[in-house]
């Protein structure tokens, strides 16, 4: 029965990593939120396939109650998981706390800044994505008006939006940019109304920074038959004539890097405790144009390629976006 789970577990914890590495993924949202959580979920699942036998993955979703995080971490730690991933900055304090109690266990924190020897932080350079989308939008707009819609403004989203605006201005100095937040991740209808208002006000390209609300933006583009730039995944199928492109995350490289470090025992003694999902390591990519490819001028594509390279070798000057 459950009664002895804990004891079994703790023994498991003591054993050394001969047997597959046990990875626990804790998601604050749902694995099908078409965004942050889903991307990570799929990234990890992909690695599980690739590393079949080397790692085995469990996940739990919707641990959004901040007060539930700590018990969840402790649960998995006490069951002898080797790597526990907390996919959101609200996991920071709990991880720091629990990591001290379980020095054997490795912890990964999705965005944040505090670390311990047995913990690390991974993050997405959404500014890379934002920059790419900004460039594209800035070049593609005919009305010189573009927009960006976000859910709640959290650190990486904020950085993304700022980069988007910054990049657009680079390629198109006298561009007008509209921006709004819906204040939550789920009210797609609100987001759609927001996007419609932007299109009505003359914007012809809108980027959204993800989640359920993103679907609202895409639907608005479809209804108004204007251009939408997706996020997180290639969202072209949602509106093939309107979703021009978008950025897609692929978390696999980052997770892989972490896992490798653990397997080769240089996770703890690794000096740099940050793993970044970037354009460089193929984590942040631009979704293909699909049927709309013909509508994109060659020089735009060229510029886009140039920016990608620039981001890859850090030659793109980008201010530090922080409140």
């Amino acid at each position, binding site marked *: 029965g459950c009664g002895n789970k804990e004891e079994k577990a703790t023994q498991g914890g003591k054993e050394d990593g001969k047997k597959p590495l046990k990875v626990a993924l804790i998601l604050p949202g749902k694995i*099908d939120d078409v965004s942050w959580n889903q991307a990570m979920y799929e990234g990890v699942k992909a690695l599980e396939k690739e590393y079949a036998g080397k790692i085995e993955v469990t996940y739990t979703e919707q641990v959004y109650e901040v007060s539930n995080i700590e018990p969840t971490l402790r649960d998995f730690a006490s069951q002898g998981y080797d790597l526990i991933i907390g996919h959101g900055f609200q996991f920071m304090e709990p991880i720091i706390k629990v990591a001290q109690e379980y020095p054997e266990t490795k912890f990964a924190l999705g965005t944040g800044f505090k670390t311990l020897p047995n913990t690390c932080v991974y993050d997405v350079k959404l500014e890379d994505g934002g920059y790419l989308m900004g460039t594209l939008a800035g070049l593609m707009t005919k009305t010189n008006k573009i927009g960006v819609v976000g859910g709640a403004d959290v650190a990486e989203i904020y950085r993304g939006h700022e980069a988007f605006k910054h990049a657009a201005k680079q390629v198109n100095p006298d561009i007008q940019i509209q*921006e709004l937040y819906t204040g939550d991740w*789920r009210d797609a209808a609100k987001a759609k*109304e927001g996007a419609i*208002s932007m299109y009505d*006000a003359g914007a012809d390209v809108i980027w959204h920074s993800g989640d359920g609300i993103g679907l609202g933006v895409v639907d608005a583009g479809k209804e108004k038959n204007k251009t939408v730039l997706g996020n997180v995944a290639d969202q072209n199928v949602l509106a093939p004539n309107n979703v021009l492109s978008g950025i897609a995350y692929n978390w696999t490289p980052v997770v892989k890097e972490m896992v490798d470090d653990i397997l080769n025992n240089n996770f703890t003694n690794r000096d740099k405790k940050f793993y970044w999902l970037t354009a460089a390591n193929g984590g942040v990519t631009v979704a293909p144009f699909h049927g709309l490819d013909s509508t994109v001028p060659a020089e735009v594509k060229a510029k886009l390629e140039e920016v990608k390279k620039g981001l890859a070798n850090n030659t793109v000057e980008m201010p530090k976006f922080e409140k």
Partner: protein
Amino acid sequence: MQTELLTQGFLISLLAGAIRTSVPILFTALGDIFTQRAGILNLGLEGIMLMGALGGFVGTYFTDNLWVGVLIAILTGVLFSLIMAFLSVTVKANQVIAGTALTILGTGLSAYLYRSIFGVQKLPPQIEAFPALKIPILGDLPFWGPVFFNHNILVYLAFILVIVTHIVMEKTTFGLSVRAVGEHPRAADSRGINVPLVRYLCVMIGGAFAGLGGAFLSIGFMNTFLDQMVAGRGFIAVAVVIFARWNPYRALGAALLFGGANALQLRLQALGMPVPHQFLLALPYILTILVLLSVSKKAEFPAAYTVPYSRSER
């Protein structure tokens, strides 16, 4: 930004937006007029709307027929509201807790069923939503055309239902019974009106409308289902009814006010109004309070509001 605010284009966009945004609330509020007039406070509408949104989407998804979706949404709403009716009329439970329970259940159940039906997909399943339906001549009117006469058919339905609700309430025997039951159930009873039956019906009517309101979100305005996509509109509807003082026309006004505030708030954000966006997001709620303050002096609740009726008690 001021310049943009003044353009006619902006106004059209704003007003049309106000209407779109208010419709799901309006549907639910209209039904809730029956429920509240009969003396029942149904805080479960949020949950019912979610079930309706799901029902509408599933129905449409599997039959490719929007009207089947609407029908299923209504049925779902009715069935789900039966729980509320049972708790508040038969069990005579406290209506606040009953409604709360229903909302918790509906939130969980809709998400749960959605996942069990569609599983986890890379991108969510979608349907073709109700298209905009331009009313022949009126639709071409310079200003009012795009504002009023270029919406999907459910929007027009909502406006028709405002009138219907008024007629039923004021001009039919049923309406009379409903009002009596909410004011003085014992009197209604001693005049041969079946109080529990009327209350059951009124809660179910409320459920039907709430189902419709939910469906408007999933297959009318949007084209997919997301859990918690109702995002508090069920509660807003209850508020709308109270501050409309149980009158369908005022409810229309109230819903438009709230919807309008929301539409405006989004536009102000987009146009870069130099205020923290959280303040703008809060605007509709603050406005609701302010309006409530100005209209409440006159408010007279149904005398038997939230009071269960039992013959043998006196």
